[in-house]
């Protein structure tokens, strides 16, 4: 079962819920894999404190031009939609940081003068936190493209057991890449004006992808009841409500698991899992 924690707005509690659910389910002898797909700002490791066993670079293929073979015909530059390769008079310039790695330039080159070489843009770390299998993607600082790293993380999705994916905030391509092929997406939000607005955008995004979804409402009591009314109106199940509680924020601040410090939180996670499972079955 693949459960994705996503949200339109950042900082609504995706990682708190994802890591606590992973920990509580692992304590109940479930086979759990936690996959941090928030590759620009991966924070799951802070709470799960995994022992990392391996780190593999993630690379995309970028062009390298053989200046001798190249006849400066310019077809590579005409093809490249990212302007990552340009033919200017007597020179061919490449801009690897703009390259999306599609491989089109090498395909169009009539002289076979373009060779593709790997360029590292991030890494995938793997390890374990107790019985939890841990996978984390990390975009290299200065690199713009997170989807290839997310795809690399998702290559480690387990065939069996429970996979918990922590998505990046927002509703653009990194979020879409993470929620694709989920069994259920839990959209985490808060009852503020921003929380509600960004929830409606996230709902639009997951509907386009066509995956089942539900809502988790964090910090209940900090805003109005707009999110509950929206969910009731749009017929979206709210599977979890966590009250506004400064103690939760304090436990979170020091990198601890809420379920280990605040009584009753583990029960909330157990209930959440039962509801997620029921939602997936229906």
């Amino acid at each position, binding site marked *: 079962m693949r459960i994705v924690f996503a949200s*339109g*707005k*950042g*900082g*609504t509690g995706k*990682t708190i819920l994802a890591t606590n659910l992973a920990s509580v389910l692992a304590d109940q002898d479930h086979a759990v894999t936690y996959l941090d797909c*928030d*590759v*620009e*700002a991966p*924070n799951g490791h*802070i709470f799960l404190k995994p022992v990392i066993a391996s780190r593999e670079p993630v690379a995309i293929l970028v062009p390298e031009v053989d200046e001798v073979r190249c006849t400066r015909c310019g077809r590579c530059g005409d*093809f490249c*939609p990212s302007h990552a390769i340009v033919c200017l008079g007597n020179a061919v310039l490449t801009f690897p940081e703009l390259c*999306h*790695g*599609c*491989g*089109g330039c090498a*395909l*169009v080159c009539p002289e076979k003068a373009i060779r593709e070489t790997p360029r590292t843009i991030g890494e995938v770390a793997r390890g374990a936190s107790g019985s939890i299998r841990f996978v984390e993607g990390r*975009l290299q*600082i*200065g*690199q*713009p*493209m*997170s*989807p290839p790293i997310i*795809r690399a993380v998702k290559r480690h999705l387990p065939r069996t057991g429970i996979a918990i994916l922590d998505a*990046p*905030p*927002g*509703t*653009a*391509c*990194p*979020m*879409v890449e993470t929620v*694709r092929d989920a069994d259920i997406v839990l959209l985490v939000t808060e009852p*503020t*004006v*921003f929380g509600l*607005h*960004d929830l409606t*955008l*996230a709902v*639009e*995004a997951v509907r*386009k*992808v066509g995956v089942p979804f539900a809502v988790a409402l964090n910090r209940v009591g*900090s*805003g109005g009841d707009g999110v509950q009314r929206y969910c009731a109106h749009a017929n979206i199940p709210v599977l979890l409500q966590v009250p506004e509680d*400064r103690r939760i*924020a*304090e436990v*979170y*601040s*020091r*990198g601890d698991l809420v379920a280990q410090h605040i009584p009753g939180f583990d029960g909330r996670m157990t209930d959440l899992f039962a509801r997620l499972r029921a939602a997936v079955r229906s």
Partner: protein
Amino acid sequence: MKELVVLSGKGGTGKTSLVAAFAALAERKVLADCDVDAADLHLILRPKILRVEAFEGRRRARIVADRCTACGVCAEYCRSGAIACHPSGNEAVAKTYRVDPLACEGCGVCGLVCPSRAVEFGSGRDGGWYLSETRHGPMVHARLDPGGENSGKLVTLVRKRARELAEERHLDLLVVDGSPGIGCPVIASVAGTDLILGVAEPTLSSQHDLGRLAGLAAHFRIRMVVCLNRADLNPEIASTVERWCRARGIRVVGRIPYDPVFDRAQMQRKSVVEVGDGPAARALRDVWQATLAALETPE
């Protein structure tokens, strides 16, 4: 003209609440919301939209089913994993291939390799951008359609229009609300800017992500200052973050206390400095003054 961009690495640390307060405090400026896939500044500033323009992110491939022979070469070459076999075929073959428009990056490789010329390209609308007037001055903002592509291109467009607007109206400051993270839209919002204000909170997560943001600022050689929001949530980590900043020559421009006034102001669709003059509002004024000073005096 000077340009300030407000960023955080980690989401939800208070970027938009700060920018809304700056909108009320700053003079002679243009506002730009570059958090294009989850834009919220307009919810507080309630702009009157003067102009709407469509945004075309990138073209997308489409396989014409009647011409597809299901050879699968396109799927083999597609590095975005956007092409998959589809069970319904045409008159000649039992199955065909289809492009997932949400995954397609529009590179064109499938069109290049298809032996049956079955791939067509259409330009897709990925959102829109707006030129607006607010109670605190002009604003340029945008909406990337959920699931939309190429947020970096839209960010660049918003900043360009905001700069043009500032020049037209002889305004000398551009205040930009940025995205969380350090990827494509953030890189597009920092290129060539004058100053980054990093909004952090005293949590290990925020500290970690601020470190990555500082790395990005250094990578692009952009000056950064930092303020701490909800600073009293964990005074110990707050001090650690401040020490960390100082050791790297990053000025700390203030501490803002944990205060429910942020939620209250948002419910009233106002910025914190517009609903009262409590400790949070006073701290925000100090942060603004210190940020402005950093913007005006190069180190």
